[in-house]
């Protein structure tokens, strides 16, 4: 044994680790004794470092935030060159840097500096054997890769990469790298470092494939070189496929980069642009999806590739099982996207692999199965693989975690011809009941094992659904029922651990999830659960949780069963708290009298705040469900009788809500659910829920109002309003206010429902002018939204024009229209006023103008030249017009009114007529 092991193996004192791993943080105060300065002043003793590292490990973030944090990284690098510390202590320091480089050297510059320092330490080591070379290589690699410093501009990278490659190829690097006995382990370590760098920067070794192949063919250590070559090969193929480039002779080219010469970063930089979540090497990801374009190598490249893969596979038996598995995953991935690369190369390995119990190997075989399917596994092979998997999932020599993983693999088995939907767990077609016999759940299983096996049983029951109950050797549903009953029995155990109850409900949930359509399963399950509640009401939270998560297939009958279970009990029960919790979940409109009876009986026993709140919570559920009769009495009684004022207030509030709100509104007002009431007042919590609902809220205008065509008829002027809405509105009430009290107050207009896109008949707004004058109407809308909120909105003001007030006179006697008009005309004076004015005419002439604007009011007409018009202006005015002897561009109008205040309005009106056309 070499001398370097002396400190480890021998000595009277057994080797103790420098790093305290007790997990108990040493008191931090201990580290303040010497002040932060003590860390940097001179070399630290082994014990000091042990304490310091222990404190760091206990909580790196706390340590780094403390006074010593800043210096740790620097001190560590310095101490590595100290002659006073033992190698073992230095290995501990390096071990820390392997785990926490980001904390020690938080940015790329610091990482680069650290790597440089580590490399310096490495070359400065004396040529005797040392335990530090290997961890120094690992640490420098880690610092660069984890610190984002690896790259063509990094000096440390430019030093490390050729050094690693030199070591990996077994080149003599001089005495500085220790005695010959250390070369072999360092060669392996260098391969590992290169592999890690390649993992973090795919394509880094793309230029070294040929070199690695030749090394593998020579004396190099098989496992590190195989894994390195396989990874570099896979990455190169992926990168080249993405770039739609060929292999470009990469597999054969290959002397190593000249010492000191530039490293080839081309492929790595190519890959960098694509560094993104990689698709899994699993078939569900289609090739296009994972960006792995199909690469078509030239025949020569294909031959070289086959040779490389065969070379790797042929020596794979020399690798440890876990390394073999990695190799298979990598090569499977590498070859999957390649045309013309039959996967038969893997075939010779399979029989050997199928016989083992090694988890990673069987998993790797499944990965190959998924990657190549029928091309590698015939139907018989598939059947054999499935049998071996089934066997492994129950083999008594294997541990439980392995069983469960194999069971998972069975339910996600990559079948050659899958039938079911992808992405869901299903039992493979070939996995018949016979194969499954040993895989069925039993009460003796651990919880996760039971659930896993139960899932399989449920899948088999689901498959069995269409078939008749056969009754002979296979009756999975019966077995399922027995099993669930056993689980419930255990869950019912008073004082038993919660895990048993949880397991029972998880199993029930799983069964409902898989077998929701099978009443033969659900009916006994419902009854069984109701009995379980009877036996152990303390499981109420589990029942509530279950009801929240299952569909109506179980939810509906279970609600009914639980409600009956609860209300059939006397109200005074130790478990009243649980009963009320259940009732608040299951109380609905059905059989309210029994529920109310229970609550009345229970009320007397609700002596503390919590119980009272639970009781009121049930009342709340009943309110929401629209139960009115009987509930009002109960609430009134509670408002008087409850001891706690908060409870009384809440009961009263519910009573008021019940008395004043209609059913649907109440449902909305009480919201879907109330958060747990605040400790002091449930009213506050309740208010948060529905204050918004009960208050009228300001909203932006959801509608447009406009005045439609006039309808000059009837005793008073009536505005025809046209409405357009942007969203459904209900119970719309439009309120109008006249500015300046020109009209009598206006009544509101009600519309039950307004829907966008559906035409609404015009709304009529009767006006009662106090003076015949135009006005502005301020408009507000109150309405209910589909969500049940009541809102109000201000709409733009609505103008009422002078002409909107016009009404015709009652019809004149047929014979004497002219006389009727003249009588009106004469009656205006002397109190009234008279005027003459010029009414401009547009191109259409007088006849059209009258027809458009004045037609309802014409008493005597001699078209096209003469019209006598009589207009009634509520409340009690009249306006008379004679339009006679029209000219080309206008008509003279003689005008009389009994209300002189109308004159200017009439003048404006007439002058504006032609423009209004």
């Amino acid at each position: 044994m070499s001398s370097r092991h002396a400190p480890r193996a021998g000595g009277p004192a057994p080797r103790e680790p420098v790093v305290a791993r007790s997990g108990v943080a040493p008191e931090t105060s201990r580290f303040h004794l010497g002040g932060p300065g003590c860390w940097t002043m001179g070399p630290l003793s082994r014990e000091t470092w042990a304490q310091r590292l222990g404190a760091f490990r206990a909580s790196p973030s706390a340590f780094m935030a403390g006074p010593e944090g800043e210096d740790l990284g620097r001190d560590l690098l310095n101490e590595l060159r100290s002659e006073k510390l033992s190698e073992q202590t230095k290995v501990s320091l390096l071990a820390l840097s392997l785990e926490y480089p980001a904390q020690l050297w938080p940015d790329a510059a610091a990482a680069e500096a650290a790597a440089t320092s580590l490399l310096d330490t490495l070359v400065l080591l004396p040529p005797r054997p040392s335990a530090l070379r290997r961890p120094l290589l690992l640490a420098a690699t880690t610092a660069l890769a984890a610190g984002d410093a690896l790259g063509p501009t990094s000096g440390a990278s430019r030093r490390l990469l050729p050094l690693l490659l030199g070591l990996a190829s077994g080149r003599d690097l001089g005495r500085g790298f220790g005695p010959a006995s250390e070369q072999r382990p360092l060669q392996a370590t260098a391969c590992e470092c290169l592999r890690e760098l390649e993992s973090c920067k795919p394509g880094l070794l793309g230029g070294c494939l040929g070199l690695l192949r030749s090394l593998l063919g020579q004396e190099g250590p098989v496992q590190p070189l195989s894994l390195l070559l396989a990874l570099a090969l896979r990455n190169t193929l992926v990168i080249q496929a993405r770039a739609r480039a060929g292999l470009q002779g990469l597999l054969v080219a290959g002397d190593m980069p000249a010492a000191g010469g530039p490293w080839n970063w081309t492929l790595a930089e190519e890959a960098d642009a694509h560094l993104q979540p990689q698709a899994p090497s699993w078939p569900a990801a289609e090739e296009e999806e994972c960006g792995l374009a199909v690469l078509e190598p030239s025949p020569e490249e294909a031959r070289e590739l086959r040779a490389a893969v065969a070379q790797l596979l042929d020596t794979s038996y020399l690798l440890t099982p876990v390394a073999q598995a990695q190799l298979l995953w990598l090569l499977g991935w590498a070859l999957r996207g390649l045309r013309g690369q039959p996967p038969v190369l893997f075939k010779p390995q399979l029989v050997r692999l199928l016989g083992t119990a090694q988890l990673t190997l069987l998993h790797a075989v499944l990965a190959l199965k998924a990657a190549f399917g029928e091309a590698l596994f015939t139907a018989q092979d598939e059947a054999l693989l499935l049998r071996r998997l089934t066997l492994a999932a129950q083999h008594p020599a294997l541990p439980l975690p392995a069983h469960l993983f194999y069971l998972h693999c069975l339910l996600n088995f990559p079948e050659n011809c899958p039938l079911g939907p992808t992405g869901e767990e299903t039992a493979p077609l070939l996995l018949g009941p016979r194969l499954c016999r040993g895989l069925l759940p039993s009460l003796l299983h651990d919880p996760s094992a039971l659930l896993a096996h139960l899932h399989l049983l449920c899948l088999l029951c689901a498959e069995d659904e269409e078939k008749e109950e056969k009754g002979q050797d296979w009756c999975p549903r019966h077995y399922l029922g027995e099993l669930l009953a056993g689980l419930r029995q255990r869950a019912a155990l008073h004082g038993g651990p919660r895990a048993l109850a949880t397991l029972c409900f998880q199993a029930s949930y799983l069964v409902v999830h898989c077998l929701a359509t099978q009443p033969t399963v659900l009916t006994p399950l419902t009854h069984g659960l109701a009995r379980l509640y009877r036996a152990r009401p303390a499981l109420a939270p589990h029942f509530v949780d279950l009801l929240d998560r299952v569909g109506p297939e179980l939810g509906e009958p279970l609600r009914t069963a639980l409600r009956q279970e609860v209300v059939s009990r006397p109200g005074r029960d130790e478990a009243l708290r649980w009963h009320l919790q259940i009732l608040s979940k299951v109380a609905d409109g059905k059989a309210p009298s029994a529920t109310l009876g229970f609550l009345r009986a229970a009320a007397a026993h609700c002596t503390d705040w919590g119980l009272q709140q639970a009781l009121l919570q049930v009342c709340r559920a009943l309110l929401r469900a629209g139960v009115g009769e009987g509930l009002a009495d109960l609430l009134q009684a509670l408002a008087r009788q409850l001891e706690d004022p908060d409870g009384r207030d809440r009961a009263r509030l519910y009573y008021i809500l019940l008395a004043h709100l209609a059913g649907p509104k109440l449902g909305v007002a009480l919201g879907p659910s109330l958060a747990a009431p605040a400790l002091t007042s449930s009213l506050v919590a309740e208010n948060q829920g529905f204050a918004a609902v009960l208050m009228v809220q300001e909203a932006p205008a959801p509608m447009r109002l406009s005045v439609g065509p006039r309808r000059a008829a009837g005793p008073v002027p009536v505005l025809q309003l046209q409405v357009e809405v942007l969203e459904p509105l209900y119970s719309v009430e439009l309120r109008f206010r006249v500015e300046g009290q020109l009209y009598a107050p206006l009544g509101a207009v009600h519309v039950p429902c307004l829907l966008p896109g559906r035409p609404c008949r015009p709304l009529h707004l009767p006006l009662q002018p106090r003076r015949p004058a135009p006005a502005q109407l301020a408009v507000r809308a109150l309405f209910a939204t589909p969500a049940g909120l009541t809102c109000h909105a201000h709409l733009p003001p609505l103008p009422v024009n002078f002409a909107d007030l016009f009404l015709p006179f009652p019809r004149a006697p047929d014979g004497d229209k002219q006389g009727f008009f003249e009588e009106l005309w004469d009656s205006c004076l002397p109190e009234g006023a008279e005027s003459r004015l010029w009414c401009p005419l547009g191109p259409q002439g007088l006849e059209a103008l009258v027809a458009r604007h004045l037609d309802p009011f014409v008493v005597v007409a001699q078209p096209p030249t003469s019209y006598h018009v009589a207009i009634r202006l509520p409340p009690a005015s009249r306006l008379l017009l004679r339009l006679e002897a029209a000219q080309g561009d206008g008509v003279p109008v003689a005008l009389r009114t009994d209300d002189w205040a109308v004159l200017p309005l009439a003048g404006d009106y007439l002058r504006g007529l032609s423009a209004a056309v």
Partner: protein
Amino acid sequence: MAQRAVWLISHEPGTPLCGTVRFSRRYPTVEKRARVFNGTSYVPIPEDGPFLKALLFELRLLDDDKDFVESRDSCSHINKTSVYGLLVGGGELWPVVAFLKNNMIYACVPLVEQTLSPRPPLISISGISQSFELLFGIQDFLHLGQKNDTELNTKLNQLPDLLLQACPFGTLLDANLQNSLDSINFASVTHPQKQPAWKVGTYKGKPQVSISITEKVKSMQYDKQDIADTWQVVGAVTCKCDLEGIMPNVTISLSLPTNGSPLQDILVHPCVTSLDSAILTSSSIDAMDDSAFSGPYKFPFTPPLESFNLCYYTSQVPVPPILGFYQMKEEEIQVKITVNLKLHESVKNNFEFCEARIPFYNRGPITHVEYKVSFGQLEVFREKSLLIWIIGQKFPKSMEISLSGTVTFGAKSHEKQPFDEICIGGTAYLKLHFKILDYTLTGCYADQHSVQVFASGKPKINTHRKLISSDYYIWNSKAPAPITYGSLLL
């Protein structure tokens, strides 16, 4: 295919934290890849403290499970594997591979080379099986020959160095940590060409091969009309080959006597180089018939240096070695028990030990026992509510022995007496513990002369056999008992 971090946590119920992180190792270069691959679904590895808390909570190992906690107890929170999601730092760390064994929690987080949302199926994550192998490897290392806490601590202290060898960057190179320990010690040996990675040196010395066959027999006996008794033999063949040369070839054949029970469900060590298809397909899943392959079972292999399990098998022997019944009737504070055990005539009547343990769960301490045994003696453990019937080395000539008696119990106090979730009311069992040396129930043996070794020197061949009981239950036939599907006579 790599690990982001690994932890060993001792479970310490009753202490404030309920556990202590005994070992942890993070892999920052893998973590860096995780951040890229997982994208927005990335959740960083927490520090030890928060991890411990979250893991113990998820595994239900905190002492506090009084109240319903939705994130743990919800019916839809279903875990069907040893892989968990932990709520830490506002995110969910997944997948966390973890299991509890001998009060130690083994945990690690594999790298997933894609986004985690939606969660990919475990089968598609290459790191998952590696996680299991790493944890199994650590478990084997810690418990191999470990006798006490001091030894455990010594081994825990070796772990950082071992993982530096076996898993320097988070990618597992060898799950056999003993091998890594040896490789540290063998480091000075010059490796010749084509040295297997699983064999770190070569043996120098007298050649010898040891083959040891250990059969465990388990049974569930009910003594009921409608429920079938079940029993099964599980065999393990352990080898230690001390042979010179880099790759010596060895072939071991397991043989059966003419009336022996065929070996089935054979799983072999990865060093086995080829397998007869009859061995590969011989399975307990199929109905047995006379055509079943009955050997000899040949296993050609190149052995590793250390002792290893060449293969495991199961077998269905025609009768259980000891057939018995157990009748227990509750009468207020006491129970009446009757036990009858019969050794099958074909079984070697020469035990290293044989005893029947009769536990009484969910009851108070034993206050009084009146009993009569036809053979052996009875020991009473009052506080543990346990009876042990020591049968000794031999059954009497009649091959049949019996015990009857009345056991009285005191008041139940929850702290001391054992709780069991299955043995409720009359549901009760007795468990047999026995060991027979130089004997297998299947008759399976490794013939010294059939061992072929292609290496220099003629090795000495040692063979050993033993039968031990494991999970050998006889259930009270007067009350319901848990059954497996195989027990249902439909």
